[in-house]
């Protein structure tokens, strides 16, 4: 129990947030929205890490979350640079138009 809240509720909340993110990745065609949904999934995992770290009274989980945030920031910087480059060349970020590798 964390302050009278069972860990099961945190697992449920993180699972729901993760699933919302993955539904967004599957159901949307705008690359930027897909990127944002990936951020949402990362945050669901972060929440679960922090809750388990609090449960076991172990600071390493929170340090790990800190590193995940650093990696996410780097990923977003490079990803958005690539997206703006794609937009400059194709004039769109629709994922259905980005199938040049196929043929």
């Amino acid at each position: 129990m964390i302050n009278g809240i069972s860990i099961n509720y945190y697992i449920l909340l993180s699972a729901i947030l993760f699933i919302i993110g993955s539904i967004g990745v599957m159901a949307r065609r705008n690359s930027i929205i897909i990127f944002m949904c990936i951020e949402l999934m990362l945050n669901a995992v972060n929440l679960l890490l922090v809750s388990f770290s609090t449960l076991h009274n172990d600071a390493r989980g929170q340090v790990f979350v800190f590193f995940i945030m650093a990696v996410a920031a780097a990923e977003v910087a490079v990803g958005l640079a690539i997206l703006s480059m794609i937009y400059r060349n194709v004039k769109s970020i629709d994922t259905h138009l980005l199938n040049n590798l196929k043929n």
Partner: protein
Amino acid sequence: MLGYTITQWLFGILSFLAIMFGLLVVFSRNPVNSVLYLVMTFFCIAGHYLLMNAQFLAIVHIVVYAGAIMVLFLFIIMLMNLNEDTEPQKTWITKIIAAVAGGLMLFVLVGSLKGSEQLALNVHGSTQIGLVKNLGVVLFKDFLFPFEIASILLLAALVGAILIGKKEVK
């Protein structure tokens, strides 16, 4: 109040808000609205961190995500001039399939993680590990090398982003 403590009420309200704003991120048609809803979701998650007394992470979460990353998203969306009219839509069948697949995945995740209440609980009263002092000791004692590697990663990402985003010289 109705047999629940104030912490449980806060947890319920924050969870509801986080899930609602998360759904709005996916289902709103205007990308700018999506970004703003995602910022609200991040604030709710920061509230959860505060509830678990992870103060350092809550502040870092707001500063890094709501302050830096989402502003970057907003800039890119405004740069590309995206709005509802240019928003590509998937067909209904794809959306339904995505929802069904997500629901099944939720079923599997919850079903497989349900038994975790038998985990060994090891809480000694109110936890203090989320404070800057304790977290800093762990970060700079046990995780000094990964910390330096993370700085190199950020430098590499900085150089890479500039190099990719630069206009080609002809």
